Structures are given as C-alpha cells and as structure tokens.
C-alpha cells in the first residue's frame, strides 16, 4: 500500500526553504525585525499569509493589520519566527484535500489556534524561548503527510479501518517502519529547523518519550493541545479526530493543569 520508497520519494520532493524565507528567519534570529519584514515583503505569498493569519479573531487585534513591518513589530521576534515557520508548513499542503475534508482556510485556522494556545501554555510553563514557541508549527505537517501518502489509497484505508481501529500513524509504522512523526522530523532537518523542534515533535506522538524531562513535559502539553483542537467540530468533521491515536495515559499527569488553563469545566 505505502512503501518506504514512497516515503523517501515524498521527503525527496520537499523543496528546500525558499531563499527569502531563510533570510527572513536569519534576520529574525538576530533580532533584526525591520530588516526581516522588508525581506518578507519580497515574498508575496508569505506577505499574504502573514496578513491572513494574524487577522484571525484568535490573534485578538481590534482592527486589521496590513503592513508586514507592523505585523512583525506587534508579534515580536519569537512569534514572528513562529508565523514564518507556519507559512513554511503550508508550502507542503495540497491545493486540494482528498483524504481529509479540509481547505486552506480551515488548515490556517488550525495553525492559528494551535499557535496561540501553545503560546499560552508556554507562558504558563515559563518556557518562552523562540525555538520552543516555533515547535508547534511542525505539528500540522503530520496531517499534510497523511494526506500526501494516503490520498490515493482512500478506499484501501477505509476498508482497513472499518475492520480494525488503526490510525494512519500505526498503519505507516507497521508497513514501512517509519511513522508520521519520523517524517516530520525529516522535514525539520531538511528545512534546517532548530534541533529541539524535531525532538519535541517526535515525543509529542506520545509513543516515543524523550529522555529529556523538559522535552517530555512540552510533548505532553503539545499532545493534549492537539487533541483539544481536534475535538473541535470543524476538525472532527474534517476527519482529523482519529488520524493519530490519542495517548490518554501519556498526558494523565498534566490534564488537570491543562483543564484549568483552558478553563474547561
């Protein structure tokens, strides 16, 4: 059905980060917000994406923010980096979704929700360094990878999943010895993302805990946040609720804290 060769082919086809993006990220990394915004403006798709994303209600701006330098100025270095990484992830997304009932608008909505709530979590945990803030941006790549690998095998997986409750991650791991989170880590490497981003994403599967307790803690919060968002009607209807298995035991010790922070009654 899906072979290791197909996965390698998929990873091979991932384009390197565009030059303008690399330059923007490098400038953000050195704290040069104004210079970074000028470079970002040269990439029209990035500019459009940034405007679209930060004007979503969850970002909470009272009036429309149009200027890229203004956006970077409001967001600051860490959140600007996170937003640019979010844009990079969208470069992988298909023009038409077949496996999941998604479209660009809903996918951006998921990115925005995850990003803002992740910031809230990191503030709560007191771990607000910029690479950790950006780690969340790679998580939705697992959805894109599932779509890319399984979209031509929809009948097969539907039949398989009607017989046994297997998630896409397990099917892939059993068939190819490589799962969605391994592929996300490969993407992070290819895009030269900071190493800890790949590590947090790997551990956030809930299946491969890290030896580093700090990374593990972040992974638990990320795992629970993912399923908090995937329990929203929009994403349940898109077929995302069970695309990977929710590891309830993995997040057991942080649930109460999470529920308080998200004001779940």
């Amino acid at each position: 059905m899906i072979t290791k060769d197909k996965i390698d082919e998929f990873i091979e086809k991932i384009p390197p980060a565009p030059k303008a993006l690399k330059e923007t990220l490098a400038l953000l990394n050195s704290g040069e917000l104004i210079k970074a915004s000028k470079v970002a403006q040269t990439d029209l798709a990035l500019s459009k994406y940034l405007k679209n994303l930060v004007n979503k209600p969850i970002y909470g701006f009272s009036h429309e923010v149009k200027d890229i330098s203004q956006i970077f100025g409001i967001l600051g270095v860490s959140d600007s980096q996170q937003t640019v990484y979010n844009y990079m992830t969208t470069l992988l997304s298909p023009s038409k979704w077949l496996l999941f009932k998604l479209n660009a608008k809903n996918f951006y909505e998921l990115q925005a929700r995850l990003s803002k709530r992740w910031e809230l979590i990191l503030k709560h945990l007191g771990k607000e360094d910029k690479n950790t803030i950006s780690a969340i941006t790679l998580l939705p790549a697992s959805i894109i990878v599932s779509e890319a690998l399984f979209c031509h095998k929809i009948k097969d997986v539907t039949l398989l999943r009607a017989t046994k409750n297997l998630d896409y991650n397990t099917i892939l791991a059993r068939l190819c010895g490589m799962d969605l989170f391994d592929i996300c880590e490969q993407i992070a490497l290819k895009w030269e993302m900071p190493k800890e981003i790949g590590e947090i994403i790997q551990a956030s599967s809930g299946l491969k805990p890290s030896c580093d307790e700090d990374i593990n803690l972040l992974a638990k919060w990320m795992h629970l946040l993912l399923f908090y968002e995937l329990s929203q009607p929009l994403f349940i209807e898109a077929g995302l609720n069970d695309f990977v298995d929710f590891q309830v035991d993995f997040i057991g010790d942080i649930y109460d804290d999470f529920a308080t922070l998200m004001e779940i009654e």
Partner: protein
Amino acid sequence: MRAVVKNGVGVFTPQGFLDGNSSSAFLSLEDIEATLVLNVDMILVSLKRVVFFNKNGLEVFMKLFSKIRQKNHATVGFCDYDEKKYKAINIFYQDKMYFSLYKTIDIAYLFSSSFQKQNKNVLLYSDDKSQRSAMAIELHDNGHNPIIAQTRQEFREKSSNMGAYDAAIDLTYLGQMGQKIATRVTGNAIIYSISSFLDAEISSKFNIQYHNNSLNVGFRLFIFDAYKVISMNVHALNFFSKLASSAAEYNANICFVGMDFEKTTDTFKETLEDAGILFYDQMDDILKNKELLKELGASSAANTKTKRVINKQTVTELPRFIDATVVTIEMMTNSKAIKQSAQVQAIDIKDKTDKIASSIGYYGDLDGMVILVFPKAIAKKACELLIGENTNDIELILDTLAELVNIVGGRIKTLLSDQNISVDITLPRTYNNVDSLLEVIQDRKGVQVELSFNDDKFLFFLTR
C-alpha cells in the same frame, strides 16, 4: 465517524473532548444511517480515548442509541472506562439508564451472542444484587460459566488470582438489554435462547441471516432453549413453522427444549410438531445422548442439502474474487501477490500440517463462500499489519485472519457492486486445522487457486 465491527459488536472510538459542541460532529446523518443497518448485537461507544466528557457530550450518542433500539433491538451503551468515568455516567443518568455499561470491550464481547468463544469462567461483582443475577443469567445464556462474588472484598480477593478465571467483571451495568435472540454453538448444534412472550417481534429479533448462513455452512441441529418462554401467539407460531420448513430443505432439525404449554394452546404444539419441530423437556436429553445427537444430525457439520455447483455467473465473476484477495494481500504485505494456477475441483490440500483457514460467505444476487488456507507462519506474515506484534498466540492469529478475510469480503462486495451485483457478506469463520475445514466443505467442488506473495504460497477456494 463509523463503527468498527468485531464479534458482533460495533464500536465508535471518539478521541479527546466530548461536549455539546463537539459530539454532534462525530455522527453525520450518513454515519447514523450506516450504523442503523449494521447487523450487530451491540453498538457501543468506547471512552478509552476520551479525556473529558459531560452530559451534553454523551447526548448525541443517546439519540443514536434510541434510534438503534427502535430499529433493530441491539444492545447499546458505553465501554472502556475507569471508575471515575463510570461514576460520572451514573450521576448523569441515575434512574434513566436504559443503556449498558461494560468496563472493557472484552467484557462486552462476553455478553454478545455472536462471540464465538464460549465456556469462559467469569468472576463477576456488582453492588446491585439484581444486576449480579442479570449478568449471571446473560453470561450463562451465552454459554459461559459465571461465578458471582457476594462482596466487593470477595471479588478483590478472587480477582487477584486471575489464573483461576478467564475474565473478572465489575463496574459493569446491564441496562435494557438487546432483545436479539442469543445464539451459541455447542459442538455442531446451534442453541438459540428465547424467553417471555413470543409474538410478531420474533421475526425482527431473530437473526435470520446468521441462521441461513449456519444452514449453508452445514449446521443441521438447531435447539431453541425455551425454558423462559411464557407463551406464544399465532405470529410466532407462523414464524417457527416457516423456519421448520426451510430447515427441512437442508435436512436440518429444529428442537424446542423446556417449553411449557401451560399458557399456550395445545393445538399450537401440534401445529409445530406437524411442521417437524421436536420437543424435549431438558437440554441434557439431547446434548448428553450421543445416539440422538447423531440421529438429529449434530454429529456432522456437512451441508447435505443439494450439493450446489459453481455456476456460470460465479465463474464470470471469478476474476473479481481473486482480485479482491490479491489486492488485500498486497495491501497487507506491501508485496506483489501472484496467481499461480487455477482449477475447478474439490478442494485439494496436499500437506495438511500446520495449516489454518478462514472463510466468509456472501449472499444476494450471487451466493457462495470464499475460503483461504494458509500455513500458520504465512498467515502470520499476511496479518502483520493487523497484528502489529510478534506473536505465536494461535487465537490471536485466527482472529486476525478472520479480520483479513472480512476485508476480502468487503472488497468483493464493492467490486461486485461496481458490476451492479448486490451481495451481503456473513461473519467470517476460522478453522484451526484443515480437518475442521474439510468437515464443513467435504467434497464440494469449487475453483481452487494457488496464490503466493514473497514466494509464500497460500490457497484460495471459491465454492457454493
């Protein structure tokens, strides 16, 4: 979201947070329609991967439950929860629990009449005495051996020695039970449990597809455990008369055991006897009498109804049956499956050692049975994707082989439907050796195809 069906139980597995907003998104109208037509004993919602729920979150499933009960009488409820979730549901619904609660899906299977593994020693406890009795009766009716712990302390002590029991049941509640006729298999006899007042509803409670499939695969003795029947009316009488007539076509026998005619007119008994139904006072009168068992046909599982041959239409569609198998094996193993030879003949298995098999029937515009025979080790390889672990547990391998054959059946259904041929598939059946398979199909002719993947050979047999 769709239910995954196994052992006659359909299970929904939502994940994450179930509240008033989210839960309605889990079930579209199509999902509900698809659930209502499932031929299952139970529909359950697993709470294994739910970290938070409130009453509003459960309500959408309650509406589904209500529709299911109106439509096909299946048991409905929740499973896979811990004590905290169990208590929460009890608080939400208190006296209005018409649904059931099973601590785990494995416990639910014990109460499913389609669960084929009987004679389990089951320790059980409930704070509610009437629940304890109800569970014990249901388990007994399903062919298990219930052992009731009288106190929580006794349950804890006994369940700590799990070697003594196959299962231990607590935190379980039987709501309004499914009213489908419970079915169990003893040797080559099928026992149906009927109770209370038998009226027109018997035709919707009785799983006629299961019964017809049992006839087709060779069962010839059907016993109705009627100890708990109070009376029957003319609709039930007609139903059983027709059932007896159709059984006669297969040379099969139908018996009633323990039926008390105090509140049913004697002419009904005469009518049933005229239709060929036999009456016995005690179950042991049949099951412990080997001579009688032989006479009634329970000593052989062979289908002695007219031996049907492969017809032209089946041969025309043969490539689709083979395709369904080949594509499924390829999907499961990521390797190329190759057809090596095909012949019309009685099944011929050269080396019977260490081989297992699974079959699935189909009926509708076309009818017949697909059988796959594998060497054990090859079956394990073919099922690796579904098993997911290295195991030598033969029960697990057989269970998984049944799942694989179920996928083949599903694919056959789809491929034939593309040709405007409508069929339904039966539950898969497994055989842990070649002899038990041969006992069923005997010398029936069919199409035998040798197939292989990665140089591992297995056999496909299509018969009617």
